[in-house]
C-alpha cells in the first residue's frame, strides 16, 4: 500500500482509505472515496500538482493533499 502522491503514469490503483479530517469534503464529493479507481493522467511540469482521473472524474490536486489518500496498485 502506498499513498496517492507516489503513483506513476500508466499505473492504475484503487483507493483503500482516506483521511477524512484532512481532506476537503469537496474532493470526497467529486468521487475520492474508498473502492474507487484512480490513475495519473499527467504531472504538472514542476512535478506538482497531479492531474488525476478518479472514478471517471478528471481533477487536479496537490501532492500534499494526495498524501492523505492510501491506494493499492492494480497489477
Amino acid at each position, binding site marked *: 500500500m502506498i499513498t496517492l502522491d507516489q503513483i506513476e503514469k500508466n499505473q492504475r490503483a484503487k483507493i483503500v482509505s482516506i483521511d*477524512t*479530517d*484532512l481532506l*476537503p*469534503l*469537496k*474532493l*470526497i*464529493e*467529486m*468521487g475520492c*472515496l474508498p473502492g474507487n479507481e484512480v490513475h495519473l*493522467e*499527467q504531472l*504538472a*511540469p*514542476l*512535478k*506538482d*500538482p497531479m*492531474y488525476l482521473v478518479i*472514478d*471517471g*472524474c*478528471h*481533477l*487536479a*490536486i*496537490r501532492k*500534499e*493533499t494526495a498524501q492523505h489518500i492510501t491506494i493499492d496498485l492494480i497489477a
Partner: protein
Amino acid sequence: MTTNLNVALIGNPNTGKTSVFNALTGLNQKVGNYPGITVEKKQGSCRLNRTTKAHIIDLPGTYSLNASSMDESVVIELLLNKNDKDYPDVAVVVSDIENLKRNLLLFTQIKDLEIPTLLVINMSDRMQRKGISLDIALLEQKLKTKIALISTREKTGIDQLKEFILDYRSLSKESITDIHAIDSDYFENLEKVFPNQSLYKLWLVITQDVNFAKLERKKVEDATDYKTQSESHLKRLQQKETIKRYQNINNALKETYTVDINSATDIRSRLDRVLIHRFWGYIIFFMILLTIFQVIFDWSSIPMDFIDKSFSKLSELTKANLPPGLFTNLLAEGIISGLGGIVIFIPQIAFLFLFIAVLEETGYMSRVVFLMDRGLRKYGLSGKSVIPLISGTACAIPAVMATRNIENWKERLITILVTPFTTCSARLPVYLILISLVIPEGSFLGMGYQGLTLMGLYLLGFVMALLSSALLNKLLKIQSKTYFVIEMPNYKLPLLKNVGITVFEKTKSFVVEAGKIILAISILLWVMASFGPGEQFNNAEEIVRQEQAQYQLTEEALSTKIASHKLEHSFIGILGKTIEPAIAPLGFDWKIGIALISSFAAREVFVGTLATIYSVGNDQEETIKNRMAAERKPNGEALFDLPTGVSLMLFYAFALQCMSTLAIVKKETNSWKWPMIQLFSMTVIAYLSALTVYQILA
C-alpha cells in the same frame, strides 16, 4: 392573464448550465447582485405557452449543497427559504452526459428538499463519440423524475424541457435517499426532537453556515440532543452521506448507463499532452497572451478613430445648432466630451472580454491553473490565482470576486491584495492615448513599438503583482490549511451565443457603470472649470486685456489667453494649483493634477477629464488626442513628451485609483484594514516610481 413560474437552474460548474439558461432566455436576461453580497444574480424570462411565463434564475454552479463559498451558500439560502419571492416552483438540475455520476450527487440532494425536481442531461451530442448509451425511461423511474436529454450545441431538446417545466405539477417530490441509513441513531434522535420536519433540511441547517437559517439554527442548537456532536463527527457523517448517495447513484446507473470504451475517441488527452506540456504548454500560453494584446491594439483602432471623430463632430454640431448659452456649453463641453472619453474604448474592452470568455468557455483556463500552480506557490499564490490575475485585465472587481474559489485563506488574501496591479481595462484608455502621443510608430520584428509598449505595461503589472505577493508571503503570518482541488473539464468549442451574450452583458455593464460616474464627474468638472471665485476669474477679460495691451495681439490670440486665465483661476484651477507642487517633480502640471484627482473615482475618467478641461472655452472642436498633443509647457514644448508620458503611465500602472476596488476588497476581506493598506502602499509605489523615471528621463 399570464401566470408566472419560478424556475431555478442548478448544476455543477462546467455542465453547460449557462448555455441552457441562454437557450431558454436569449437576451431576456439581467445580471445583478444578491442583496448585500457581491454574488452575481442572473435571471431571465422565457415564455412557455400563451398563458405561462417562466422566471428563470441561473444559480451559481456548485458541486453539492455543502457550501464552501459565498456563491454556493446563495443556492442553499434560496432553496431552504420558502418565503423568498424567487423560491422555485420547479428545480431544474443540469448535468452533463460525461460526468453524469458526479452530477447526480447534487441532484439527489436537491431531490430531498421536497421541491419538484427535473433533470436535464446536456451535451447529448457527445454520446455517440464517447460510446455512451442511456436508458432514459428506466433512469427516470429510478430517480423518480423526468429527464430532458438536450444539446445546447445542436439546439435539441429545449422544447421538451419547456414542456416538462410547464407540467411541473406531475413531478414527484419524493426523496430517493433514505437519510436514516446514514446514521440511524443520530437521525432518529433528530426526528424525535423535531417531529414532522424534513430531516435533510434540518441536517443542512445544522451543517451549513448559511445566513438565512440563523433563526432556525438557534432553535436547533437549543435542542440538547444535537449538541453532543463534534465538528469532526459531523464531517464524518457528511462523508457517510456522500458514500450513501453514491451507492444509490451507482445502483441507478448500473442498468441504465453504459460506456463502450472501444468506440470512444478522446481528443482531451491528445490536447492535454500539448497544452500542458512542460515546454510547449508555457510557449503556447505566452503566444496566446501576445496575440491578445496585438489584437486589442490593432483591430480596435479603426472603430476607435471613427468614434473619436463622431464625438467631436457631435460636439461641434451641438454648439452650432443650439442657442449659445450655459446649457449648450455644458452639453458640448462637459457631457459630450466626457462621454466620448468612455464610448471610444468600447471596441477594446469588448475584445478583451471576448478573449477572456473564450479562454474560460473552452476549458483552457483550468489548464493554465494546473500549469502555473507550482510556480505561483513560491510567491504565496495558488494556481487558481491565475484566473483573478487574468480577468483582472478586464476589471479588478470581478477578479477580486473570482478569488472565492481559492480554498486557502492566505493565498486568497494575497491574491486579492495584488490583483489591482494587473492592468485593468480602465487603465487601457490612459495607456492608449499616452502611447499614441509619446511612443513613435515604427516597428520591430513585425510588432509595432506601440503594441510592444502596451504589452510591456501589462507585463509590468503582472511582475509587480508577483513581487508584492512574494513580499506579502514573507510578511503575513497566517496559518491555514492548503486545499487545492480543481476540475479539469473536457475541451469544448465555445458556443457563439454564450460568448456573444457574455461580451455584450459585460461591456454593457462596464459602459453603464463607468458612464454614470463619468457623466457626473464631467458635469462637476465643467462647473468647477466654468466658475471661479474673486476678481481674477470674474474680471479675467479686463485683466488680460490690460496686461497684454502693449503686445498688439490679434483678437483670437487674446481670447485664448483670456480663456486660459479664466481656467487657471476657476475653482478647479485653484485646486489643481494647490497640488501642483507635489506632482511637479513627476512632470505633471496642474491640469494633469485635476485628472489625477478625478481618477480616484475611476481611472478611465482621466481621458474624459482632460478632454473636458481642454475643451472649456475652446471653440475649435478637436479630437481628444489632438487637443492633448496641442498642450504646451510654459516654455512652448509639448506637455506630453516622453518623460511626462512614461511617468504618467507608471503612476497609473501602480496607483490604486479606484473606489469600487476598495469597496469590493472591504467586502471580501470583511475589514477596512486591507483596502487601506493596499491604497497606501500602492500610492507610495506609484509616486516613487513615477518620480524616479521622470527625473532620469528628463
